[in-house]
C-alpha cells in the first residue's frame, strides 16, 4: 500500500533554483503543514508568472539577512518563516494584494478562530472582517 511519490517538475525546478530549500533525495521536506502550504503558494504563483525564481531567491536572501540581523539562529528550522515573509512581501510588491489586505485577512482568521468552539471547523464569515 505504499503511496506513489510523484515529484513534479516544477517543484524540482524550484528546489534547484532557490538555495537552501530543506529537502531529501525525493524532494522538499516540511516540518509542518503550513510550510507545505507556503511552499505550494509560491510554486503556484511562480507558475502564474508573478515572479521568476532568481527574483524570489534574491528577496528570500534579503529576508534571511534581515532575520539574521534581528537574531535569527539560522539553523534551517526557521527557513519557512523567511519563506513566508518573502511571500507576503512579494505579493504586496507585485500588486497582487496589499499589506493592509493581508493584515485584515489575518485578523479575520484570528477572529474566526476565537469564536469557533473547539471541535468545529473554522469558517471565515463576513462578520470576521468587522463589516
Amino acid at each position, binding site marked *: *500500500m*505504499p*503511496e506513489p*511519490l*510523484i515529484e*513534479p517538475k516544477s*517543484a524540482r525546478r524550484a528546489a534547484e533554483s532557490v538555495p537552501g530549500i530543506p529537502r*531529501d533525495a*525525493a*524532494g*522538499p*521536506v*516540511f*516540518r*509542518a*503543514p*503550513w*510550510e*507545505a*502550504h*507556503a*511552499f*505550494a*503558494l509560491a*510554486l*503556484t*504563483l511562480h507558475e*502564474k508568472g*508573478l515572479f521568476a525564481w532568481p527574483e524570489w531567491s534574491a528577496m528570500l536572501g534579503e529576508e534571511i539577512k534581515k532575520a539574521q540581523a534581528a537574531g535569527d539562529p539560522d539553523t534551517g528550522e526557521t527557513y*519557512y*518563516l523567511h519563506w*513566508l515573509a518573502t*511571500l*507576503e512581501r512579494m*505579493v504586496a510588491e507585485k500588486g*497582487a*494584494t496589499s499589506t493592509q*489586505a*493581508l*493584515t485584515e*485577512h*489575518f485578523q*479575520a*482568521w*484570528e477572529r474566526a*478562530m476565537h469564536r*469557533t*468552539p*473547539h*471541535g*468545529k*471547523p*473554522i*469558517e*471565515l*464569515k463576513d462578520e470576521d472582517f468587522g463589516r
Partner: protein
Amino acid sequence: MGLRENQFGTVFRLRATHPLGYIRRMAEHHHEHDHEEGSTLTDMDLRVRALETILVDKGYIEPAALDRIVELYETKIGPHIGAQVIAKAWCDAAFKQALLDDASKAVATIAQQVGSVGEHLIAVENTPQLHNMIVCTLCSCYPTDVLGLPPTWYKSFAYRSRVVKEPRAVLADFGVALPAETEIRVWDSTAETRYVVVPMRPAGTEGWSEERLAKLVTRDSMVGTGLAKNSSEVA
C-alpha cells in the same frame, strides 16, 4: 451557511480538528468523529490562510491546484521529531524509560513545539515477543506532532478495517513478516490518546550517534507497519 464562495464556485472551509488544519473541499469532508485538540492556530497558520484566502479570491490561485501540491507533499512533512525521539530512546535508557512512562512529557523535553499540544501520547515498545501497530479505526487520528501528517493509506478504510482483524496480512502487504510466535498488538487511537511505536534497534548499530540512528527510523516503523531500516541501508 456562512461559507465563503469564491469565483470558482468552490465552497471550502477549514477544519479545526488539528491545530494545523488545512483546506479541504466539503465534498471530501466525510468522516465525522472529531478528535479535538482545540481550535488554536499558530500565527504562521493564520498568515498562510490570509494569503490563501486573498489569492483565491483574486483568482491567482485555484484551490484545487493548491490542494494537489499540498497533498503531494503532506506525506513529506517528515517524521523528524519522532525519529529523533526513537534514536534517543535507543541510546539513553533513562530517556527510554521516561518515554514509556509518559511520552508527552518526554517528547516535550526534546522538541519544544510539541509541548503545547494537549493530546496524550503513549509510546509502545516493540520487542522480539511483541510487535505493536497503531490505527484509528474510526477516522485517522495520528500522532501528527511527532510523525507529521498521516500517509494516505493510514486514512484508508482498507487499513482501518483490516489491521484489527488480520494484522499479519496487513504487515505482509507492507513486506513485513514476523515470526509466528511474535504477538501483534494493535492500538486504536482515541480522542485523547495517540500512540507511537518504539521500533527495535537494528543489529550492527552499536556505537552509532543519535543522528545516524535517526536515519534508520522510518515513519512506518513508528506506526508499526514497518521495521527500522537495516544498518546497511544507511551510510
